């Protein structure tokens, strides 16, 4: 807020009190119309805030048991207390739930490590692939004395995170290939990439998921079947890769042709030119839209609910279909909305930070 203070406000003489008064004057009460608008806004905010706080905190029951919920008019947070394991792990066998817990820690830990630019190297990609294999073994079991757990029992937040992180990890390289292909000089390669991108961008994600769940089994030879989770995952990857490819292409188009020509003049090969000259500049330009594609990928994982996978949203739906909790649907949806919100908000803030970081020292 302090940045909002205009320069004419005395910087040294004024107390905090006086400064805030002058801030209020310039930002809220500069004219009669502005004052009226401000008062209306304050009224609206007060109404919303008091309703939300009243429901979620003041009039809510925080006890762990549902018995006390009858007495309160607000939220009954016993819902979360009773269902959190179900929301986190879905129908994973109760005694084995330490395994998805490890998976969640691995995924979140991996994301936090990957966010740090110090760790950016080809080894990070190798570490991720090893990490995915380890995670698959931990979740699926069947070897090393771990009990076998079919992927139909993976669920809740674990499944949502798997779909999102694996989706991002594979959609990004695929998008890069598609973007390069679309800008390639080989006509046939270009046509294939254009058709792939435009088809996936032209249809809703749900139709891609229907295709993966209903139609894809028909494409396989007799006796071969691919896990439904994997099919949905591939659908998500293809769909988002098409969007991401257009983002990357935009970045490549924004690089002046002088850069391409200079690289050619230096005698660099195509791959050297792309990996050393063009892509480092192009990808830096498109950090914000790339991140918003990742955010929509994360949000869109919720669509697998429709084709019958048991992600966070589906788990919540199942939890509030339980007769005990039928009245607590608002608590359920608000709670997981907060989870989704935290992840997405965090990602968007990270995008802003990264964009600033990457452009440090770029301007003269």
């Amino acid at each position: 807020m302090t940045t909002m203070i205009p320069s004419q406000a005395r910087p040294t003489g004024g107390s905090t009190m006086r400064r805030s008064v002058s801030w209020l004057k310039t930002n809220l009460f500069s004219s009669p119309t502005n004052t009226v608008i401000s008062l209306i806004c304050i009224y609206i905010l007060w109404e919303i805030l008091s309703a939300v706080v009243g429901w979620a905190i003041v009039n809510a029951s925080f006890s762990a048991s549902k018995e006390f919920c009858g007495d309160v008019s607000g939220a009954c947070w016993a819902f979360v207390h009773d269902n959190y394991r179900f929301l986190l792990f879905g129908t994973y066998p109760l005694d084995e739930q330490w395994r998805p817990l490890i998976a969640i820690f691995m995924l979140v830990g991996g994301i936090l490590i990957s966010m740090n630019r110090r760790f950016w190297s080809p080894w990070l990609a190798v570490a991720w692939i090893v990490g995915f294999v380890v995670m698959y073994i931990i979740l699926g079991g069947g070897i090393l004395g771990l009990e076998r757990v079919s992927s139909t029992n993976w669920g809740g937040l674990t499944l949502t995170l798997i779909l999102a992180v694996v989706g991002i990890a594979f959609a990004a390289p695929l998008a890069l290939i598609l973007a390069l292909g679309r800008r390639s000089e080989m006509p046939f390669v270009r046509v294939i990439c254009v058709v792939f991108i435009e088809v996936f961008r032209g249809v809703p994600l749900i139709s891609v998921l229907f295709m993966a769940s209903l139609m894809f089994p028909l494409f396989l030879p007799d006796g071969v079947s691919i896990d439904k989770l994997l099919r949905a995952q591939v659908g998500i990857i293809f769909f988002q890769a098409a969007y991401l490819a257009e983002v990357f292409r935009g970045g490549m188009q924004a690089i002046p042709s002088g850069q391409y020509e200079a690289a050619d003049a230096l005698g660099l090969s195509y791959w050297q030119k792309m990996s050393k000259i063009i892509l480092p500049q192009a990808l830096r330009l498109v950090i914000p839209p790339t991140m918003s594609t990742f955010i929509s990928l994360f949000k869109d994982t919720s669509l697998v609910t429709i084709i019958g996978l048991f992600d966070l949203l589906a788990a919540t739906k199942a939890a509030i279909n339980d007769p005990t909790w039928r009245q607590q649907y608002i608590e359920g949806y608000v709670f997981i909305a907060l989870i989704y919100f935290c992840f997405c908000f965090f990602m968007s803030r990270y995008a802003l930070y990264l964009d600033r970081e990457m452009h440090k020292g770029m301007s003269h």
Partner: protein
Amino acid sequence: MDSKHPSDASRPLMALLYDKTVRSIIYQVLVFGGVFFLGWYLVSNVQTNLDEQNIATGFGFLDREASFGISESVIAYSPESNYGRALLVGILNTIKVSLTGIILASIIGTLIGIGLVSKNWLVRFIGKTYIDVFRNVPLLLQLFFWYALITNGLPGVRQALNPLPGTFLTNRGLYLPIPADNPAWFWVFIAFIVGIIGAFVLRKWSFKRLEATGQVFPHLSVGLGIVVGLPILTWLLFGAPIEMNVPALQGFNFQGGLNMSPEFFTLLLGLTVYTATYIAEVVRSGIQSVPKGQSEASTSLGLKPSWTMRLIVLPQALRVIIPPLTNQYLNLTKNSSLAVAIGYPELVSISNTTMNQTGQAVEGVAIFMTVYLGISLLISLFMNWYNKRMALVER
């Protein structure tokens, strides 16, 4: 690497391998072969699978009786109608909810977008909070939430909420009053269309006159007068009917008026609230893209504030706004397919039922993918045309 190098000439085969064109042809043949083989393999698998499972192929099922009901439809439909008609109902329902959603989301999004550049800190704060909250929560979750709230949270028909006279909110949807049946309304509508055409003709004529004589004709206010005035005049000519068709409780439900089903209402609400956040950002960036110097220069040339807005700022802002805006409209249309989760009978939902009944998944998916692809292509064609028209003509 250079194919003209003398040592390469002695090994022509190797030289060929290093030739750029030859390489590119080899790559393309490999890619083509891979794609062709994959396609052939998948198609042959589909054929064997379909033969084994005794599923018919082709679009013959479109003529067969659908024998399932559809809760709401713009055109006449009964379970005896065929699948083709059912799918048409779905397409029309998709268009219905998308168009209404686009109009509402544009209005709300524009208002919030203007709020985001307001001088008032509180207005900006409310706008930003709205965007952060609704943008960072999956649309499907929002739809489930609104649907649960409407079907469980709202009172039954007998205790209906009555926020405005004649308007009722119940767990069976929203009931709105509409003007009663009267031939006058048809002619008012005709007058409205005539008014719009008249305004356009007037605009053309006034521009021509401006270029010929330099005289300014207030075509905007006069045009607006025609568009609004003509229908009102027609309405008065017909004796100014004011009778309204107000929904009224009869037996177990409301009769009369306009009824929005809970599914339609939920979908409309969800799509509007969600897409408005994106439209607001588009509008904000459009407004901020016009440098302040433009309006200052225009003022110093002596143009009135309203002209500055209309002739200098808006055309430049719209050039930035329109392309991403059409993208959002397209997204809204595609997102309307989430209705399958709450049971609003739009295209994907009806295709889904059709696929379950006939087992013809390939055809079902093909139909709705074609429809959506068609809509996307139409809109991108429009976009290209628009971009060409609006592109800066530089010397």
